[in-house]
């Protein structure tokens, strides 16, 4: 869209509403003579806005009063009990779902933590048996830090992280 048209577009609504001063109005009307696109937009906008001004009032669909009268009669007889209990799903469901998820997570975590070692699946148990050898464990761990000398400060720190305090060299 040309720059001029973009500028015109900013004032289109004021033009349609008749809120522009004579000078600016003349600028817009001159532009409309040269630009078909802006002229069409102004005309369509003008027609739509006019439609809002002459908006006809519409009668409700039939059946409003009979339904309303029945509700009112029920209300007179039963009072507040006749009203359906409104449930705000948004307010109730969200916290309920959050609490439920939290409880499920906690239960599952507790179950995993307290599961006896002898009941572990066979493959998993074998793997943990294999890792019992301390030297092998340290060696496998240190494989990731192959370029760190074991007797350096960094090496000492790494070993201190994987060995219990009483087994420290």
């Amino acid at each position, binding site marked *: 869209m040309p720059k001029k048209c973009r500028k015109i577009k900013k004032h289109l609504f004021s033009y349609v509403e008749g809120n522009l001063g004579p000078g600016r109005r003349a600028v817009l009307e001159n532009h409309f003579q040269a630009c078909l696109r802006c002229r069409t937009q102004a005309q369509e906008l003008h027609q739509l806005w006019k439609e809002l001004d002459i*908006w006809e009032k*519409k009668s409700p669909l039939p059946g409003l*009063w009979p339904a309303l009268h029945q509700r009112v009669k029920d209300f007179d007889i039963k009072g507040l009990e006749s009203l359906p209990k409104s449930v705000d799903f948004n307010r109730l469901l969200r916290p309920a779902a959050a609490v439920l998820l939290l409880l499920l997570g906690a239960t599952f975590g507790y179950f995993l933590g307290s599961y006896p070692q002898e009941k572990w699946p066979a493959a998993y148990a074998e793997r943990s048996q294999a890792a019992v050898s301390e030297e092998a464990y340290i060696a496998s761990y240190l494989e990731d830090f192959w370029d760190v000398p074991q007797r350096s400060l960094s090496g000492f720190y790494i070993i201190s992280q994987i060995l219990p305090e009483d087994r420290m060299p």
Partner: protein
Amino acid sequence: MSKSDEELIRRIVNQDHSAYEELVSRYETLVYNTCLGLTGDAVLAQDAAQEVFFQLYRSAPSFRFECRVPTWLYRISVNKSLNLLRRQRIYRLFRSLSAVSSDERMDDAIDSKIGTKQPEEAWEIKEKQNLLLKAIADLTPEQRIVLVLHKLEGLTSQEVAEILDTSKAVVEGRIHRAKRSLQKILLSQIK
């Protein structure tokens, strides 16, 4: 001689259903059209209108006559329409309504309005009104309320301010912003 709104309300408090019927028939068009403008849906507007009048019946004993009855009804209409729209949005999360059905409902609302016009003219008006209702539905609730009350219901800024319990300046600002937003939406639609 027709009875005043206040007198009808006093009789409604004593469970006088004929007074209630008279008040409903006096204001059903006002309430329904406000709800229609705010919801953009004929069926939702009908539900909202029913809720508004039921609320009027329930709250009649506590009405303190500090404002006019139409002002009170406009307030209830705004609240009930927005509540229904909110509930509708939650409902759609569970069961999505097709866009077609919503369009059909809008068409139903407009059809009866233009029944007396020539077919071509009627079709054109229907198209325009559909476009406008859709554009209004795209506004923020705050902007939609002021635009419907001011433009469709023809209320002054002062009257809208009274309904919304705010100042005239605030309402005028909102009307200005609503018009700007509507302009953008309409221009993007008629491109």
